[in-house]
Structure formats: structure tokens, C-alpha cells
């Protein structure tokens, strides 16, 4: 009898509980699981999508509009020559393990990231740094070797978050930062759970108590999870063909925004036949970008002709430089000595946009006499090993989701194996240029070089098809940096 009463009481409290206060838990769905949880030692964006702004914080941050905002540095002074940055730090900030944050941590984090043996994925952020001084615990003085137009902006990225020397080594599996949420648990292959940080330095910043990131790769399963209420929000759903349907459903808010992700089919520029620019141009001529976006992403996503996000003010539309033209493609192939056909392979990761694009590319290439075989691979682990590290590939396809990452084509030993000294000098020059107009002009010229030289096939800009419970607010509609910043998310009842 008493058991039954207890059960009845439990049911009553369970059903009335949520009505008393707004929900404070959030489940966010992501297609790919991060390989670790330290954004300062590895490239995959999934790491940033879990940790950036939630677990870790930098001196500055990028806001939802792509602008630089103060964070752990409450303000800064830049010397007139642009070579000395003095950051004034927030005081009273604590790491999740209880230790205090101060200028020594900033110096440690940046010195670690720029050390010769560092595996930081964006070392160009720290390359201009000459010295880091810490005159007192609340001040950091960074002297640069040369001016750096994007220095502050870069410091807002996940690669430049501040970590503590005591915990840095274990951050991959047990992350410790200064952010509004603390790491709770990680069930491999399934979810990462975060809980509210009660000692956060901006006490009323967040409304959520728990945040769970769930990893669901299959687009159909993503939609099913949303409909079943297992997942509250998919910041970027993998099923564009179902997006218009979800848009009509009053239970959800569905927003088509922009990402910084350029979908490119990278070619191994050091390998025959891709060392011949005529072959690369022929492949580009063979691609009908509009049809590709239609078939691979149900028409969402802007075609691109170079490697620059349309969201950036320096963007120039380069799709006309090497337009869809099968006759030109055939002529160029014949000129390069492949008039009788060419056999190549494409290593394709499992993401729907990638495998669909690869199938479409293979069909388009077949029409100009190129036989492209599709070899499935798995992102990130297998792809990173085979393509990114060992460069054992002909063609591959992946979206590059870091913002302002045109410089990857200027990097030595990057997976494209692309070498162009003029481009390299231009990118270095643009980076040093502090005048915005002059810098943007240089970026425009760099876009043109890539559009003409085609080190990779420039396909389209990945849209951000966000779908979440209509009662949720505060999620980002665009992603100017790869992130799922949930600090401002709340439930309406």
C-alpha cells in the first residue's frame, strides 16, 4: 500500500515538476564525436564545438556576429607601432579545479602552443609573437616581431584558449578551463556531459544546469532524435532534404544560416596528374556547382570559386573564373595528354555532404572522360591518418570550417601539397597589414590566385541548418567560428 502511494507521489511530482520552473537541461546533437577535448592540440572542429566558450575561454572571444569581444582580458592597449599588446586581465577567475587564473597561465598557454614540439593546429596565430611578459598577475604584455592584422581576432579562437599548467596534460580526456560549464563525463561513442560551474566569474551568465552533447551521425536518426525529444537542438542537421519539412513543424525553430565551412575537393598537388595545372583546371571546368549543391545539399549552400567565406567582408565571388564548361575540360585534358581518359580515386569521408558530392563529382567527371573511383574512409581518425598526415590520396573531399583559413594553402607540408611562393608571400604580407582596406585587397588577390591555380576544387559553402525546440532561445544562427556556444541558451517555460 505504502509502495503504491510512493509510486503515485513520484508520478505526481514527476509530472508537475517541470511546470514549476523552466527547464535547465539541454541536449545538443552533433554529427561527429570529437577525438579529444583539448582544442589547443588538435584540428578537428568537433573539439571546439563541444568545448569553446563552454569549457574553455580565451583572452578575447568571437561573438555570434563574428566580432571580437573581451573575455578573460577585460581590456587591452595596442602600442602605436602595433607591436606591443598589453592585456589587462579579469581578476577573481578560477579554473574548474579551484586554482586561480592569472597572467602566468596566459604565458604558459601561449608558450605551450608556440613551442617547436607543439601540435597546435593554428600555429600561425602565435607565429608573430616575440616575447610574453607578465609584469603582474593581472597584466600580460605581448611583443610581436612584426605587425599582425588578425592577431586579436585569432586570439578568440579555440586554439588560443587559456589552460592551466597543472592540468594541461590531461585536458584531452579531462578538460579543465575557466568557462561557465565544467566537464562531468564522457561516454565514448555516445555523449559528453557538462554541468554548470558554480564558481564562474560571471555568476548570472548562464541559465542552464546541465548540457549534454550527443553524437549522432546518421541524418535520419538525427531527425528521429529531434522528433522524439531525445535531442533538444541540432545546431547543424545533416539532413537538408528534411529541413523544409522541419521548418513547417511548429514544435521546432529551423534556421538556415551560414557556416565558415568551404566544401573543397582537395587534390594531391605533388602527385601526377594533379601536379599539372591544366588537369586541375579541367576537373574544375567539369563541375556544375549549382547541380552539385542541388543534389548534395537540396539547394542550400552557396557555390564558391575560391577559398573564402561569403560571410567575410573581403569575399569576392570567383565562381566565374573557371566556370562549368565540359568542352574546355576535355580540351585541357587532351592538352595535358589525357585525351584518352584518366583514372583517379577519391577518398570520401562518411558525412552525407561528402559522400553525395563525391558521387556527383564522379558522374560529372565521367562525362568528360575521367573515371573517378570512390574509396570510402572514416572521418576523423582514418581520414586524418591517411589523407591529412600521410598524404596517401589523389582527391579527397571535406569542409574546412575554420574561419579565415585561406592561409592553409600557404602552409608547408599541408595535405594539398600545394607550393606557390607568390601566394605564400602575399598571405604573409596580408597578415602583417594592419590597415583593413589594404589587408582586404590582398585577400582579394589571394582568392584570385587560388581560383586560377585550383589547388583544390572549390565547390560550395556549407550552410548551417539549425533545428531546435521552439521553446529554446539563445542558440547561434550562424557560426562565424566553429562553436556551439550555449552560455546564452534558455528555455521559455
Amino acid at each position, binding site marked *: 500500500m505504502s509502495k503504491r502511494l510512493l509510486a503515485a507521489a513520484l508520478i505526481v511530482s514527476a509530472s508537475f515538476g517541470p511546470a514549476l520552473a523552466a527547464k535547465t537541461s539541454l541536449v545538443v546533437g552533433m554529427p561527429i564525436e570529437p577525438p579529444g577535448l583539448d582544442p589547443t592540440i588538435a584540428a578537428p572542429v568537433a573539439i571546439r564545438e563541444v568545448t569553446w566558450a563552454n569549457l574553455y575561454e580565451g583572452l578575447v572571444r568571437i561573438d555570434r556576429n563574428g566580432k571580437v569581444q573581451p573575455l578573460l582580458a577585460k581590456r587591452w592597449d595596442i602600442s602605436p607601432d602595433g607591436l606591443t599588446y598589453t592585456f589587462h586581465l579579469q581578476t577573481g577567475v578560477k579554473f574548474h579545479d579551484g586554482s586561480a587564473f592569472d597572467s602566468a597561465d596566459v604565458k604558459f598557454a601561449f608558450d605551450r602552443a608556440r613551442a617547436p614540439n607543439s601540435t597546435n593546429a593554428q600555429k600561425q596565430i602565435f607565429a608573430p609573437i616575440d616575447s610574453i611578459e607578465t609584469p603582474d598577475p593581472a597584466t600580460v604584455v605581448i611583443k610581436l616581431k612584426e605587425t599582425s592584422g588578425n592577431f586579436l581576432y585569432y586570439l578568440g579562437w579555440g586554439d588560443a584558449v587559456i589552460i592551466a599548467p597543472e592540468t594541461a596534460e590531461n585536458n584531452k580526456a579531462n578538460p579543465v578551463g575557466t568557462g561557465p560549464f565544467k566537464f562531468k563525463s564522457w561516454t565514448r561513442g555516445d555523449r559528453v556531459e557538462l554541468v554548470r560551474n558554480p564558481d564562474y566569474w560571471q555568476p548570472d551568465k548562464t541559465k542552464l544546469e546541465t548540457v549534454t552533447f550527443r553524437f549522432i551521425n546518421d541524418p*535520419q536518426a538525427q531527425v528521429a532524435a529531434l522528433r522524439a525529444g531525445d535531442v533538444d537542438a541540432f545546431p547543424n542537421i545533416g539532413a537538408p532534404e528534411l529541413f523544409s*519539412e522541419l521548418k513547417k513543424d511548429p514544435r521546432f525553430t529551423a534556421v538556415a544560416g551560414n557556416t565558415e565551412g568551404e566544401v573543397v575537393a582537395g587534390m594531391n598537388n605533388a602527385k601526377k596528374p594533379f601536379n599539372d595545372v591544366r588537369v586541375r583546371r579541367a576537373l574544375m571546368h567539369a563541375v556544375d556547382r549549382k547541380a552539385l549543391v542541388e543534389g548534395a545539399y537540396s539547394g542550400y549552400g552557396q557555390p564558391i570559386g575560391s577559398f573564402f567565406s561569403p560571410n567575410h567582408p573581403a569575399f569576392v565571388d570567383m565562381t566565374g573564373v573557371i566556370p562549368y564548361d565540359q568542352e574546355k575540360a576535355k580540351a585541357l585534358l587532351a592538352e595535358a595528354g589525357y585525351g584518352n581518359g584518366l583514372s583517379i580515386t577519391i577518398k570520401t569521408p562518411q558525412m552525407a555532404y561528402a*559522400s553525395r558530392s563525391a*558521387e556527383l563529382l564522379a558522374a560529372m567527371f565521367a562525362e568528360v572522360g575521367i573515371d573517378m573511383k*570512390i574509396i570510402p574512409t572514416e572521418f576523423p581518425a582514418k581520414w586524418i591518418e591517411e589523407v591529412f598526415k600521410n598524404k596517401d590520396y589523389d582527391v579527397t573531399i571535406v569542409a574546412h570550417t575554420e574561419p579565415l583559413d585561406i592561409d592553409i594553402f600557404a602552409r608547408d607540408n599541408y595535405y594539398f601539397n600545394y607550393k606557390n611562393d607568390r601566394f605564400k608571400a602575399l598571405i604573409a604580407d596580408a597578415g602583417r597589414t594592419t590597415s583593413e582596406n589594404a589587408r582586404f585587397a590582398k585577400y582579394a588577390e589571394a582568392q584570385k590566385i587560388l581560383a586560377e591555380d585550383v589547388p583544390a576544387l572549390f565547390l560550395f559553402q556549407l550552410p548551417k541548418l539549425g533545428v531546435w525546440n521552439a521553446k529554446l532561445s539563445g542558440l547561434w544562427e550562424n557560426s562565424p567560428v566553429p562553436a556551439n556556444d550555449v552560455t546564452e541558451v534558455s528555455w521559455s517555460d
Partner: protein
Amino acid sequence: MRSRLRPNAALVIGGILTALLIGTALLSLVWTPEPPTRVRIAMRLKAPLDVGLLGTDHFGRDVASMLMAGAWNSLAIAWPAVLLGAAIGTAIGCAAAAWKGLADEIAMRVSDVVFAFPAVLSAIMIGALLGSGPLAAILAIAVFNIPVFARVTRGVALQVWTLDYIAAARALGKPPLRITLEDVIPNIAGALIVQVTIQLALAILTEAGLSYLGLGVRPPNPSWGRMLSDAQTYLSQAPHLAIAPGLAIALSVLGLNLLGDGLRDAIDPTLRSRSASA
């Protein structure tokens, strides 16, 4: 009377469906309404009869043509896989029946171990070793078929070994290998043919499962399994994309199973009662 009518019906229906499957597969080598891999984005997701007999998929490819080419791709994996498995399995089963004792024990226990792995699991393991693709699929399905044929062969071969004329041959000093080749195998051929038919149905199903998981036929070559997996996300918009390959798989498997049943009853009615009681 009734017991003879049913197997005949099974034989006829199974035979027709199987002939249709093989005929379609062969026809696809020389003719399909459209090239099965031709992409026409402007005509994507069209309904049946709107464009082509069975409509178009998410790339505007002709579904009817893809089904036809898929039939060939399906058989091209299923046939060699079953024949390979049957050859090895029959050899093991015959050897076990001929020499008995320790050889028999070892062969059957190893069969039990292989049998314990589902075909999909062994395919994933073989795929990890060889890389995914048609060869891995053939090997995976073949491995799965070996213990099936080993057991069936051993069972019927042991019976044959008890027959009087074989005892006579042994008494005359005919070596076991010659007895197996000249006397046992001709006697068990019927049972093997029936088993091949039934295993073919299973192989087609497994191949579809493997392609569904991305382990079988490589894109862009059409495969029923991958057509199903591609159709998933379009289920609400274009259900014909899932129904067409689903029906093709179901009818092929049904046809081969009926054919196997019909053949079994036609070749050796005693097999029916034995397998029913087993």
C-alpha cells in the same frame, strides 16, 4: 495428391521469379532504359511514371535502370560467394564423412565456431583486413557458407556411406577418396543443389545488408542495399525509392526459397520430411 501439388507450385513460382531475376540481371548488361549511373539533377526525386517506369532518385538517376543493374551486381557477388563456400564446405563435409573420428570432430567444431559469427560481423572483420568492396563481400559471404555446406554434406554423406554397395566397395579395397568422388558425391548432388538455391537467397539478402552498411558494391555502381540506405532520408518525400529495391530484394529471396523448396521435393521427397523433423 495434395502433397505433390504444393511443391510443384513452389517450383513453378520460384522458377519464374528466379528466371526473371537472372533474366533482368543479364539484360542489364546489354540494355537498360537509361544508363544506371547517369545523374540528372534537374529531374531529381520524380515519381514513378512521371520520369521513367519507377521514377528517379535524389540525383535524378533512373530507378528502374538502377534496379536492373543492381540485380546483376547482387548476383555477381552472391553467386561466386555461394559457389566458393559450397566448394570448400562440401570438401570438408565429404572428408569428415569419409574419415570420421578426429578429422570429423575437428571439422565440425571449427564449423561451429565459424557458424557462431553472423555474416555481417565477419564481413566487417574481413572488410577491415581487405578494405571494403566487392571482394570483401564475396569472401565474407563465402566464409559464412562454408560451415552450412560442411554440415549438410556430412549429414547426407554419412548416410550414403552406410549403403551396402559402398560397404562392398570398401571391402574390395577402393580408397575413400575414390569412393567419395565416384559414389558419394553423385548421390548427394541433389541435396547440394537445393542448398545452393537456398543459400543464394540468403547471400542476396546479406549482400544487400552489407551494401546498406557501405561494405559491398562501391558507389556509383547501383546496389539494392545502398539504394535502400540512400532512400532512408527521402522516405517521406519519395517513398518509391525505398519500395522499389525493397520489393526487388523480397521477390528475389522469395523466388529462390520457393525454387529451393520445390527442387527439394522434386529431386528427393524424403529430404522434405527429414529437414522438417530436424
